[in-house]
């Protein structure tokens, strides 16, 4: 009897995994098709409006670029210069020094000729105390505002202080070390001005800047990363941004606008309560609350994604840092799903409750757990049970080639759209990485995510992770010589 029950259980698990995998594959196939349509529509519209019209206009919507900085003394000056050089007629740069223990603030004061000003600050979103605001005495840097605050142990808290200090109706949230393309604001602000429905957030693709040539905070030449981990992450980013998020954008179901680059409606973000300082997935959590707010006021809205690589950021180059980052993301995911569990299948929240949240639970949260169980089951089967090697091999090859097809398609879109890489060799390396990613990089990711889940259940305290920066390929000397 017990043997039969166990046998039934195993069989049940097998059938569940079979159907789960099939639905996963079909779902992602559907996403790929949607993504292709979305990218095609976007590229078809290039003659509809030229960016130079927006750049010259006095009637564009103002944008505040909000960038928190914690112990960024090494690169802060170049980073701020890079942000100040963005091409848009109405914007400001708000840098938040989140209680850095290094010389971040001193360097800013010195380089940009800052003085403390009597800024009338109102804490619309609660944050750790703000110690002061700094503005430049040099009119060249009039667009810069530096907010000095007590460390709040989270990027969310720092971003909230920036939002409170921002003067324009839209705010662009980024990390201070991110290198933005000059037309970033134009590209991201455009959907806010061309949609009939209210746009509450926009985002765009992020790429790895490791190995890119950077000249005084400006991107000089894009290269495929030399570091192995960074290479895998580049591949992952291409796939996630071009095939995943574009498809979600097409059906107006985005739940994640990356913390590295996102433009938000300030009014809605404040009404939704801003970033939650205890969240480890603050970007996803904010979008969830903004969505909930829009449903509560019953106003139709859009969250849109742009198939352009506008932001370049240094991605983790060591396993230790990568595991920490991914474990934080994993923890952030489960935290958000748990915190907003009332959204699941709630009529009030429309597609967020019936499509987006169930997807995140089934195909995002559950995947690492199932993979781990699958791995353990395989090990046990090898030892105890009579493994059906023929079918194991057949299905493994099937999944592997499906993965390769999807990944190579995303690389192809990327190549056709942007032609980012320098030569055939770099493209060939990218392809080679795709072949080994499932065996080398993916297990690290799974481990890190599961670690994040474990920490969530153990309720371990979160903190800002120190990113060990490797630095860009600097060409300052070239610039000076030139």
């Amino acid at each position, binding site marked *: 009897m017990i043997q039969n029950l166990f046998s039934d259980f195993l069989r049940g698990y097998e059938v569940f995994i079979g159907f789960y995998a099939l639905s996963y594959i079909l779902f992602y196939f559907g996403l790929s098709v949607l993504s292709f349509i979305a990218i095609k529509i976007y590229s078809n519209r290039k003659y509809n409006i030229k960016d130079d019209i927006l750049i010259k206009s006095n009637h564009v919507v103002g944008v505040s670029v909000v960038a928190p900085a914690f112990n960024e003394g090494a690169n802060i000056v170049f980073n701020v210069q890079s942000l100040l050089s963005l091409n848009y007629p109405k914007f400001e740069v708000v840098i938040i020094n989140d209680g850095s223990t290094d010389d971040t603030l001193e360097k800013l004061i010195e380089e940009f000729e800052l003085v403390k*000003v*009597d800024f*009338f600050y109102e804490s619309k979103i609660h944050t750790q105390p703000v110690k002061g605001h700094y503005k430049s005495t040099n009119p060249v840097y*009039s667009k810069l505002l530096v907010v000095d605050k007590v460390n709040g142990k989270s990027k969310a808290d720092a971003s909230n202080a920036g939002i409170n200090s921002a003067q324009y109706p839209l705010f662009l949230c980024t990390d201070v070390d991110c290198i933005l393309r000059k037309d970033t604001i134009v590209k991201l602000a455009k959907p806010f001005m061309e949609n009939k429905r209210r746009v509450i957030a926009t985002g765009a693709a992020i790429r790895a800047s490791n190995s890119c040539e950077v000249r005084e905070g400006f991107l000089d030449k894009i290269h495929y990363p030399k570091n192995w981990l960074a290479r895998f992450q580049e591949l992952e980013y291409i796939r996630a941004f071009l095939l995943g998020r574009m498809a979600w954008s097409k059906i107006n179901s985005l739940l994640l606008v990356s913390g590295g680059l996102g433009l938000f409606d300030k009014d809605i973000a404040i009404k939704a309560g801003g970033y939650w300082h205890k969240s480890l997935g603050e970007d996803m959590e904010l979008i969830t609350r903004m969505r909930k707010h829009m449903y509560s006021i019953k106003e139709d809205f859009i969250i849109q994604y742009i198939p352009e690589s506008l932001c370049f950021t240094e991605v983790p180059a060591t396993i230790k840092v990568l595991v920490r980052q991914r474990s934080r993301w994993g923890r952030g995911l489960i935290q958000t799903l748990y915190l907003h569990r009332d959204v699941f299948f709630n009529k009030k929240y429309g597609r967020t409750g019936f499509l987006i949240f169930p997807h995140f639970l089934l195909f995002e949260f559950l995947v690492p757990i199932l993979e781990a169980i699958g791995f353990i089951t395989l090990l046990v089967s090898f030892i105890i049970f009579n493994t059906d090697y023929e079918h194991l091999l*057949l299905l493994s090859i099937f999944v592997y080639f499906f993965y390769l*097809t999807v990944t190579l398609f995303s*690389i192809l879109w990327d190549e056709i759209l942007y032609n980012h890489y320098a030569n055939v060799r770099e493209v060939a390396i990218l392809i080679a990485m795709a072949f080994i990613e499932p065996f080398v990089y993916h297990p690290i990711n799974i481990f890190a995510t599961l670690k994040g889940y474990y920490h969530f259940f153990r309720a371990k305290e979160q903190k800002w992770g120190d990113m060990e920066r490797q630095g860009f390929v600097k060409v300052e000397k070239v610039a000076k010589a030139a």
Partner: protein
Amino acid sequence: MAYKVEIAAIAVCVLVCGNLQLSFSQGLDPHHIDSQVYIESGNPVSGLSYKVQLASYSDPVPHEHFELESQNDGFIWTFGEFEDFREALEVRDSLLADHPDAWVSYYFDGEKATYQKVDSLVQSHLIQSQKDELKESLYWLESAGYLPDVRYKVQVGSHNKPINKEGFSTETFEGNHLLLYGEFVDYHEALVARDSLINVGFKDSWVSFYLSGSRASLAEVSQHIKSNFVQTEVPEVKVVEKTDRSIRQEMETMLYADADKSFVKKLLYFEGERKIYSIALYFIIIFFGTTISLIMVLISHRRSVEMAKARKKVYQRKIDDFLSSLLLEDDLNDELLDKKLQKFKTKIPFEKDWCKELLIKNIVDLKKNFKGEMADMFITIYLKLELLSYTEKLINDSSWYVKTKGIFHFQELGYTKGLPIIKKYTKDPNDFLRNVAIIAYISLEPTEPLSIFNDYKGQIDKIDELKILDTIKKSRIKVPKNIINWLNSKNESLVSMTLKMVTYFNHLEAGDSVISLLDHPSSKIKNEAIVACGKLYLSQAEERLLEIFNKENENNQIEILKTLRTIGSITSTFFLEQLLDEKNSREVKIETMITLKELGSEVYEREFEDNSELGLIKMHVENPFIQ
């Protein structure tokens, strides 16, 4: 071209995959026997004979030893007629010394036959032989009595994984798990059991053979029967003997038990699992083919991009040189221009679309920097190079986005003759195409271009507004006659854009209409009207602005405060001084303080306590570094 290469690459890969599959299946065919090998082995085929052919002639040449045969195209000498191909070969070999061209030819029913015919005959013969063999084997099987080494079992199914079912036995054969029913010494009993099983639902049941306890083929069993005696006495062996009724009852019990099982249980042990694996195999082949194709496409795309870059660089230089030389030419008449253009066309791959696109881009860029005759010269070049037909081809394309590209050419070149083509798209249902057409129409139409907005019902987004305003500015368009009428339009997006036009043209005659829009139900229109009141210095709007202030949202309140800075009087100052004491947002408070400062209010000059809210706001406003 690059795309053609890529498509070809995909096609090749798909074909390779298809062929791989084809070869695979051909390699698996165990029954195929080569006809030539078969006849060379001396196997007789009914009706087939062989003769040695020695020579052929156009006229009849008799021979004393050889037979002269008439054929359709002449006469041949033949020797002998054999049923065994090997014999014919031996004779031919003996004749080779005198007749080196001798060879064996085929005959069917006395007529000369081709190898194709022989092949077909041999294959039919083989199939018939196999059938005969099978028949013979079954005959032996059916007529045999008890044989001590031979057993029969009914095979119900073959599975990839171990399976257990009550009443059935299992065994493993060639990696498959077989589900078997009974063990019979008599073939007929096995057949009865098989039919009963088919009746109760096991449709794929069939009788399998066992020789000395091992699984055997029909041929092996029949061979064994042939070479052994028939024993009449049946010894005592333990066999499962069940009647048709007992099997039926057993199966019905099982099926009934199945019906009792939950839906989940049925789902767990669903049929057709094997089919999924077969489908997966097909998909692997498809995915594999796609993977290889994608790699080839990616590499070839990257190479072609690099080549195109280098190519464009070269031709860009040639175009630059040519256009510059035209600009520097002193006496450039029509004839000389024609001559130069014809010569230039031979230096570049003019027939390619990318080259035409590159040329138009260069012409547009240069034209922007010139006016008058020089600018007209670029239109002449554009026409003489017959680039107009390329643009028209784009506009006539079925895809809307290709059309926008063509319309854009006309707009950028200032080609006014293209207006009739463009006009029909200004009412197109596709928003993007219509907007591009409208912008192009406005920039090209010499008289009253904005009249296109009379009775305009389409949506104009903020971004379209910006484009239209930019075009008005660039083309120096004058105030449209109906501008005031547009302010009364029911199309809110048109009203919003008109308010911006009114401020751009500084059209004071529209003042009353603008003020009346302060009562418009749309807050966006009201916002634009408030801005317009300030920009047109409509001081008569002050009273109404103060009246509506408290009913407006924060954005409009801020705009009212900004407007009052330019049109406000003592009434506004009084109003704002009171407003300072009210509870408002940070932004409203700051704007109120700035407005009071601008209006020279005495309250603003008052000393506030440093830590009081008003004191902090005043310090914020007074700080020279805060915008």
